[in-house]
């Protein structure tokens, strides 16, 4: 890809890497069609609500310590400021630091949609700067400001002289893309274009893109074996830290969807290698990833030694628990960064994936390759029915109803509850480190076992509730509302 840091706009995933949100078929067909260029995403004539790209973009930026996010739009757009405030406080406290990031809205009203409000925005930026002296300022648009053509770039350029910290315009119109992960790219772009400086010296650091750094202490410990120091992004990052990420030895991420824009951009602009292996979930994932880190940082010996020690501890335990999991059937629904990774781990554990839903699908990663997690499955002759749906719950329910799996796994809030109402035990794979490495893969396997062992909660609830979908819908084909994209 070619990244243009001079422009504040980022092309959407649909336009940049051919991402889609509508497809039904199989994993192998999806890959085949991606490779030969025949894959066309479908749209839906009926859909249920999903997620706004601004939530992804601004959750990332507002997690950086001591910055300001100014969300120019009606109060509903900036509503995420409430959860950002909470997260910043509790995540900083857990880490033993402070985070005084502010996330404010502009409470745009009807007059503003007619007459514009750039002057008010200008004053708000200056006032926020005066009140809080943030270390960086992100000024972001919304659907309403985008449609009326509010020129936030000019406002930002205009105040730049009066503000002595990095300031960036961040384009977050929710209608731009159905793929909320575009928001991750938007946040990376803002950080790259306003904060990251060209390298002056190489450091012993690895950029580690993640969400909420729950495994931070143990990853620091792992990397200490290799004489490497991870820098976790962006939760609890400082602006100073971010300004130096071009000096790291490599970039890696816990989720390809989350990290690929930053990883590719740092590689393209500053020659920082981006580790593109399958991710750290499960046994083969963890080992492949560690070996790749070893390779790019020239530490393969240390990595092999570590793998050998750890295998001795964990592999026998994982083998033991696999006996109890064998034969279980699962449906999973996650972002593409996890769907195909978790499918691999389930396969390792002897659990059959009968259907995998990806909330979107990137035909090609920024470097033009098919996503590595998918390639791994195909190379290992693992195939299953698959669909792409941006959290279309009615499609998930249709699938669960038809397949009645032993287990449903999802990573997104609000989805597992519907599985249990269907009477299907569900595991909420919330934490991005839930399957990280040998240790968490073992814990994950045990959690699955506990979940299917005691089905009281879901069976009690399922007996008492009525599902909100009509019988008509359950009799339909899951793809009933998909239609070809009109050119």
């Amino acid at each position, binding site marked *: 890809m070619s990244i243009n840091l001079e422009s504040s706009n980022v092309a959407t995933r649909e336009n940049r890497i051919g991402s889609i949100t509508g497809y039904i078929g199989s994993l192998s067909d999806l890959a085949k069609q991606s490779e030969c260029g025949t894959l066309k995403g479908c749209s839906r*004539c009926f859909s*249920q609500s999903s997620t706004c790209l601004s939530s992804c973009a601004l959750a990332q930026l507002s997690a950086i310590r001591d910055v300001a996010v100014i969300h120019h739009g009606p*109060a509903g757009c900036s509503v995420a400021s409430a959860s950002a405030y*909470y997260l910043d406080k509790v995540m900083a406290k857990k880490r033993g630091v402070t985070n005084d990031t502010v996330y404010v809205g502009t*409470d745009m009203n009807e007059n503003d949609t007619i007459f514009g409000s750039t002057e008010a925005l200008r004053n708000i930026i200056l006032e926020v700067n005066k009140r809080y002296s943030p270390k960086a300022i992100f000024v972001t648009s919304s659907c309403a400001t985008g449609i009326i053509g509010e020129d936030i770039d000019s406002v930002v350029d205009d105040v730049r002289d009066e503000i002595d910290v990095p300031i960036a315009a961040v384009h977050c119109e929710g209608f731009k893309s159905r793929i909320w992960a575009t928001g991750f790219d938007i946040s990376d772009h803002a950080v790259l274009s306003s904060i990251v400086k060209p390298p002056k010296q190489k450091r012993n650091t690895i950029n580690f893109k993640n969400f909420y750094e729950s495994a931070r202490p143990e990853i620091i410990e792992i990397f200490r074996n290799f004489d490497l120091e991870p820098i976790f992004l962006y939760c609890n990052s400082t602006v100073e830290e971010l300004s130096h990420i071009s000096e790291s030895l490599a970039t890696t991420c816990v989720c390809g969807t989350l990290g690929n824009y930053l990883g590719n951009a740092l590689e393209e602009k500053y020659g920082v290698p981006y580790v593109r292996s399958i991710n750290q979930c499960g046994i083969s994932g963890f080992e492949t990833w560690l070996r790749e880190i070893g390779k790019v940082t020239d530490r393969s010996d240390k990595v092999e030694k570590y793998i050998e020690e750890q295998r001795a501890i964990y592999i026998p335990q994982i083998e033991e628990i696999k006996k109890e999991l064998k034969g279980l059937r699962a449906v999973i629904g996650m972002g593409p960064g996890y769907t195909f990774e978790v499918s691999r781990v389930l396969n390792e554990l002897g659990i059959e994936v009968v259907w995998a839903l990806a909330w979107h699908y990137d035909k090609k990663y920024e470097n033009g390759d098919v996503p590595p997690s998918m390639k791994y499955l195909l190379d290992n002759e693992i195939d299953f029915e698959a669909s792409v749906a*941006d959290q279309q719950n009615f499609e998930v329910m249709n699938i669960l109803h038809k397949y009645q799996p032993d287990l449903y796994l999802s990573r997104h809030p609000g989805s597992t509850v519907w599985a249990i109402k269907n009477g299907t035990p569900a595991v909420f794979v919330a934490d991005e480190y839930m399957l990280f490495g040998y240790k968490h893969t073992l814990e994950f396997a045990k959690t699955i076992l506990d979940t299917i062992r005691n089905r009281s909660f879901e069976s009690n609830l399922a007996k008492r509730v009525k599902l909100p979908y*009509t019988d*008509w819908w359950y009799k339909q084909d899951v793809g009933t509302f998909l239609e070809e994209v009109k050119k």
Partner: protein
Amino acid sequence: MAKLLDKQRYKCALGAMQTVQAITRAIPVLHSGPGCAQKLSDSTGGSGYFSPNIFPCTSINEKDVVFGGVKKLETTIENALKVIDADLYVVLTGCIPEIVGDDTGEVVSRFADADKPVIYASTAGFKGNNYKGHEQVIDAIIDQYLEKSDEREKGLVNIWADVPYQDLFWLGNIKELEKLLVEIGLKPNTIFGYNRGIDNINRIPKAEFNLLVSPWVSIGNMKKMERKLGIPYLHYPTLPIGAYETSKFLREVGKFAGVDEAKIEAVINEHEDYYYYLIERYADLFLENRVINKQFTVVADAQYTLGITKFLANDLGLVPAKQFIVDDTPKQYRDAITEEFKKLNYGIEAEVVFETDGYKIHNQIKEHDYHGYPLILGSYYEKELAESLQGNYLNILWPVQDKVVLDDFYVGYTGGIRLIEDIYTVAVQRFN
């Protein structure tokens, strides 16, 4: 005009999807961007019969912005009727269709003959906050669904209170208000919460009067029903919390409804007996703890700032410091609400400030002399502030992170006791 919304405590008008969600088996159909529902939902108590990720949504994209989204809206409504088993479909518009000029009303009118009622409310985010959006939804029900009834059901009273979900205690409060009215011999009718839905909406026109318990939210709805349905209303501005206000409330409602005074007094007497049995037993805690001082501040919407100020002043003998109302109360209601803060026992008057800028609120709290540890009831934003002032803090208003409420409530006699329990649960965690 756009303003600095620092520490925001409300959502936008489309947040009224939660008002619809609170009506059992009513479903919002959103004509909006794909992520509005997720943003505007709270993760607590949202996974009922319908949850935000079930809400049909046109998920407007760039093409719809240019060419309009009416076709997508039509197929979305049409298929929502097929896929989702609901009693009432409420189409809510977000910012985009209202700016680009989609005629939502026209599309919805095509479903006049559908098996289930389909109505719509204009709830673009820039039209106001979710308190206003709540009123828009009720207006839509009155305008597009309800019809005047010649029949009146003796003793039937529609109760209206503040905004479901935005109000942490909405379910418990409305159930408790119903219970109190039953005790004085009336037949309450509400449309929100457990076992309430389309049948209750259908009963609205038969009521003898509407009872509005809110400083300002829904006053417009009451007037509309008075005009269109011929239903008079009693506006009781204070959320009655604790014995003093609840007894006053029952007397006023009873008088308006023509309930026998002796009956009202008997109900009051029974409640007050038990209430003061509890208060007497715990009076030592109230008097002799070392951390709850006399002065308190409430940072909340008009409903709770007024209700709690009256409760703490008139029942517990505390003294209001500056009070803050953060719901962006429309200007025309502010004077009347300010007057209510002057009606405290012993001629005490509370200073109340209408302010949506949390930075300014925090500065005023820091500047105030509380003669000791402050007691602050507010949003999650006040937690750190209270800690820095060594104060006592209770999270009563959105955003809420410090409390889980399933059906707890602060209204009525029992609600007052619950609030006391919450305040002193905080207090007893420290010695001095």
